[in-house]
């Protein structure tokens, strides 16, 4: 299965890219997506996660074709 991964803001700069595409042979959680997309970097404590543009937590399962995003605390408004 294929998973689109996105990084935003300071996290994008730390990781050095804004997008990644994972090809996985078995079901993954959001945390496992992070690990595979970042060469097992540590998941930052305050990171926010979304699957298909909805907030989720790191244990949420990810499906083929999903878009998973990681970003720091938001600072709009």
């Amino acid at each position, binding site marked *: 299965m294929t998973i689109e991964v*996105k990084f*935003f*803001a*300071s996290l994008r700069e730390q990781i050095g890219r804004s997008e990644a595409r994972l090809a996985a042979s078995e079901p993954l959680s959001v945390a496992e997506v992070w690990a595979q997309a970042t060469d097992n970097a540590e998941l930052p404590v305050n990171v*926010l996660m*979304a699957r298909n*543009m909805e*907030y989720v937590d790191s244990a949420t399962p990810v499906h083929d074709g999903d878009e998973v*995003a990681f*970003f*720091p*605390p*938001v*600072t*709009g*408004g």
Partner: protein
Amino acid sequence: MHSEIREQAFEPYAELLQYQQAMQAAGRYGATAVFVGSMRDLNEGESVTAMELEHYPGMTEKYLQRISQHAADHWNLLDSLILHRVGRVEPDDAIVLVAVWSAHRKDAFEASRYLMEELKSKAPFWKKEQTSEGERWVENNTAGY
């Protein structure tokens, strides 16, 4: 009910008036509560000359739409408007406009505050400030309550 991301500077009060006239609800709203967030030229003690506002295209719009719908479900509203700027922003530019129209003030006040608190705590936007000391990501929005 409308929410929108803007890439260009906007004048909030002109936008408000235009939106309100197009609503064609004259005589039905007794209360309009408005919040405008503007860029300050000082933050955490440092002079800020400009700001880059990043968002998550798709998710941000969806989130603004969702909180607008939630407000409409929870309070007795006639209409609401959210505009939020992205891209390069300069001091005194409007960053966000939230407006709520209702028959009565309690609903208008509460819904406008709800929208701002939700937007600040969860809508995927990020600010990178340009200061005299270089660039820096804004790390946290303060809680408004």
